[in-house]
């Protein structure tokens, strides 16, 4: 019980005054996760829609593969990105390891299958209603993709949100490629992991509450815009 009361007092302290360190961590967390989610949506939404609409040989295999990648352990993915970006890796010349960009790349790779798979399912379901009219109007494939994405925009907001939730809450990948460097690559989840390893559980839990509050704020924002669009 004493731990939980300490948690709430820590939360109070964290939220009472603008702690520059905390704000920096929160800002970096949001910057990394939002950028990764937006980039994943920019590619995953049209890709998922295309998969939902277009039939081609091997579509089932591609679908199963993408669905499988949704369950990719962040640590494994972080390791792959680490190997790619490390000095001896194929992208080592970019010198991105232990930078926020590396964290964005890792989270992007984590979120992309989620956005693609959920979009594919959503668009495939809608396509059964749309196909007759779209075919009758001779709508080109790219326009079909745009139309379906626009018409499914409300449910696709939830898809984007699922991707963002995955990004903001993961720790394994960003800690491997980012290194949890203070004032450079420390985000909420890696800070929580650090405080836990240091044994400062109240602070770790308090940071968790702050993280949940951020997630709540983003969800509220998306939900209100969803209501407005509807």
């Amino acid at each position: 019980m004493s731990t939980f009361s300490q948690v709430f007092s820590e939360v109070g302290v964290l939220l009472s005054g603008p702690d520059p360190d905390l704000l920096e961590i929160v800002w970096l967390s949001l910057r990394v996760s939002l950028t990764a989610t937006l980039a994943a949506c920019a590619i995953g939404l049209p890709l998922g829609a295309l998969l939902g609409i277009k039939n081609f040989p091997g579509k089932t295999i591609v679908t199963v593969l993408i669905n499988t990648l949704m369950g990719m352990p962040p640590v494994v993915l972080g390791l792959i990105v680490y190997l790619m970006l490390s000095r001896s890796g194929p992208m080592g010349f970019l010198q991105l390891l232990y930078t926020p960009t590396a964290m964005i790349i890792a989270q992007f790779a984590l979120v992309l299958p989620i956005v693609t798979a959920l979009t594919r399912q959503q668009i495939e379901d809608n396509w059964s209603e749309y196909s007759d009219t779209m075919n009758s109007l001779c709508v080109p494939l790219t326009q079909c993709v745009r139309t379906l994405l626009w018409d499914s925009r409300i449910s696709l907001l939830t898809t984007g949100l699922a991707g963002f939730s995955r990004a903001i809450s993961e720790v394994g990948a960003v800690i491997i490629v980012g290194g949890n460097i203070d004032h450079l690559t420390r985000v909420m989840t890696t800070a929580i992991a650090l405080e836990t390893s240091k044994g400062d559980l109240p602070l770790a839990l308090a940071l968790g509450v702050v993280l949940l509050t951020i997630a709540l704020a983003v969800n509220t924002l998306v939900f209100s815009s969803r209501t407005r669009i509807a």
Partner: protein
Amino acid sequence: MLPLVTKQLGLSVDNKQLLHNIWLELTDNHVTVIMGHNGAGKSILLRCMHGLIEPTEGTIHWAGCKASSIETRKKQAMVFQKPLMLNRSTSANIEYVLKLRDKSESLTQKYLQSAGLEHKADQPARSLSGGEQQRLAIARALACEPGVLFLDEPTANLDPGATLKVESQVISASQQTIKIVLVTHDIAQARRLADDVVFMSDGTVTEHSSAKTFFSQPASAEATSFMSAYIR
């Protein structure tokens, strides 16, 4: 666009013969009504005519061009029993087609007026009533400026008032020299609209005659039985 000529048209899917041996010629810009029992193949024939389904046997041509060619299909439009409303406003549904066909979006108002929906231009199309949605679907189809308009039981789920409004839209389209091919079960509607009737049974055309002849003296036993069943 005319004439439509089908020669020995047939369609089989998974070893099931859905259409067979259909010889048909539509030559006039009249309202052609396709009638028949459920499962007779009316809607499938309509889709074949529109080029949405490629027949497995025989040929189907519009003015000598294959029905499935994009050029032919772009000169046609189809309205389905359950109309698809794009998830946007009523006017945006029309604008979508106008843009698709490289036509001026200023024509939107004209098509909305033709459907009697100008006062609902900004309303979400999906919030319209069933009859209004069907009228919007027809107006959207007409925005393609088609030579042929296919209608697949457009009034099947509508009340009599809404049905009459849709019918007046169809008559008005027909008066603009658009060839109408309509599938319906409704004999009274067929009597009101048809210039000629194609009767189908078990996946083939058993009769094609003028509406006057068909309703006074159906030639085929299937059509006679269909009519008597409805009259009873």
